[in-house]
């Protein structure tokens, strides 16, 4: 619940009110216009045939937009791909936690490693798309490395083979997010009380036992927070698709959020785009609500 620490004890007057609302006005106007309005209007417009130049000319069509989604095979592909995208979640969480544990030690050069792992997080997705386009090229470094290790005979079309492209894009999501979750886990690890682990050490528990029996259970809130954040991110993933494949080859890399973006800004079918966004929003909202409820009951 909100805590307002600096409440002056004197009773407030209408002048106090007016002044406070003046301080708030600029932020509230922007929030109303660009955070609240889109949700309300968007939910409404998803049931209409939208006229973006004159919204009053939009026509109520009931569930027709959602019916159109259901009838579109590309939308079904998007749903399946979004579910597949969730595979990134356990992989990235395990890897990030392992990295955090490795790097959270009083040893030389650990800060340097942390920075190296974090650099992809502060890189624009467009630059990421360009660089990985080169890595995934027929003659690119990935194919060359695999050939050098004698793991493949012929180059793999990472972004041109419709059976592989989605996983190649997911791999880039993994690469981009690793450092982010690592930093969250480091913060979680550093907040743990040292005494419990020291006590276990005195009792003769080895490093492995201490990690699984003590660190992981105590880290539960961070683990759940990161898993939820990364599930939300996977459900909404589409930037990597925009910059790397544009949904191709043969529509094999469409995700739900990409479908919405594509319908809106490439096909200019805003009605269908809004219906698809409403679906993503609903899923996202349920997950965010679970997140919120959980962390409130945990007393965070």
């Amino acid at each position: 619940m909100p805590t307002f620490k600096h409440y002056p004890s004197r009773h407030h007057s209408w002048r106090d009110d007016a002044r406070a609302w003046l301080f708030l006005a600029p932020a509230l106007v922007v929030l109303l216009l660009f955070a609240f309005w889109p949700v309300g209007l968007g939910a409404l417009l998803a049931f209409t045939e939208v006229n973006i130049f004159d919204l009053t000319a939009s026509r109520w069509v009931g569930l027709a937009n959602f019916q159109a989604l259901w009838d579109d095979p590309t939308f079904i592909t998007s749903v399946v791909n979004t579910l597949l995208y969730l595979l990134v979640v356990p992989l990235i969480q395990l890897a990030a936690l392992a990295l955090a544990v490795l790097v959270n030690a009083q040893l030389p050069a650990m800060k340097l490693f942390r920075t190296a792992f974090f650099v992809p997080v502060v890189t624009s997705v467009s630059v990421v798309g360009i660089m990985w386009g080169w890595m995934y090229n027929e003659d690119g470094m990935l194919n060359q490395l695999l050939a050098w290790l004698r793991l493949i005979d012929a180059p793999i079309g990472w972004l041109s083979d419709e059976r592989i492209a989605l996983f190649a894009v997911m791999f880039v999501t993994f690469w981009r997010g690793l450092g982010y979750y690592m930093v969250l886990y480091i913060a979680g690890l550093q907040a743990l009380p040292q005494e419990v682990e020291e006590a276990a050490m005195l009792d003769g528990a080895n490093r492995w036992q201490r990690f699984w029996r003590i660190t992981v259970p105590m880290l539960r809130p961070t683990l759940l927070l990161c898993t939820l954040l990364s599930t939300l991110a996977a459900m909404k993933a589409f930037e990597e698709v925009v910059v790397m494949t544009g949904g191709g080859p043969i529509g094999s890399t469409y995700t739900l959020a990409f479908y919405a973006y594509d319908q809106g800004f490439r096909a200019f079918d805003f009605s269908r785009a809004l219906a698809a966004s409403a679906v993503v929003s609903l899923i996202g909202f349920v997950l965010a609500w679970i997140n919120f409820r959980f962390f409130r009951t945990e007393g965070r």
Partner: protein
Amino acid sequence: MHLVRKLLLSWAPRYSLLLLVALFTTFPFLWTLSTALGDAGNIYAFPPQLWPEAPTLKHIDEARQTIPLDRFFWNSVLISGATVAGTLVLASLAGYALSVLRFRGQRLVFLAVLATLILPSELNIIVNFITLTMLKLTNTHTGVVLPLLANAFGIFLLKQAFDEIPAEIFDAARIDGASEWQLFWRVALPLAGPALAALAIFTLVATWNAYIWPAVVLQSPDQYPLAVGVLYLSGTFAAKTRVIAAGTGLTILPVLILFLLAQRYFMRGLDGAVK
């Protein structure tokens, strides 16, 4: 001697693993850099030469001549600068009201701002585009910046910072006859310096790197920021890999340097964004 050997043996697995992961996360950058600075020869040679034999800056010059990099750079500076300035002003004013002031409807405002953190944002990109169309702000930098100022996390970050200032400081200034505006400007803001820095750097990195939103709002390439322009050009000049690599390098470099210099503040901002 025995101790040294023991230490080395226990460290070796950890360091080799960390080195391998560091190579994994930084390799695409190293490759791009060496391609941008390399002179001639096969860019896809293997094993890759991570430091070119005769490094040259000519591809950077060529990039600046072939593609409007300088223009993109200034667009990026304008968009990011305006977003950072606007975010700091709006968030500090609102954060101050929520932390220090007392007014009717405070609880409601607090909950409303909190609600924007869990409201679904997926509809925003499409409806905000429609809103901008109605306001005739598409294809303008103003249109890119305005929706980015709706930043509840910034408000909370600064509310928290103002909460940490001891009440006695405000009381003493009030007794000395300071107006509320002076309290805000002369007392609260200077004391919230680190939080302001965290919000500024975090917003700057996010805006500089933003791709989707500016690409949606801006239609004419001469309005593009670097992050949008460089991808647009990599399609057009795909054959000139070294030139694109140079442009890519110039896109990353400013934000990377800034991040390295202000890492501490950035991490603080990240912490605030999660909570």
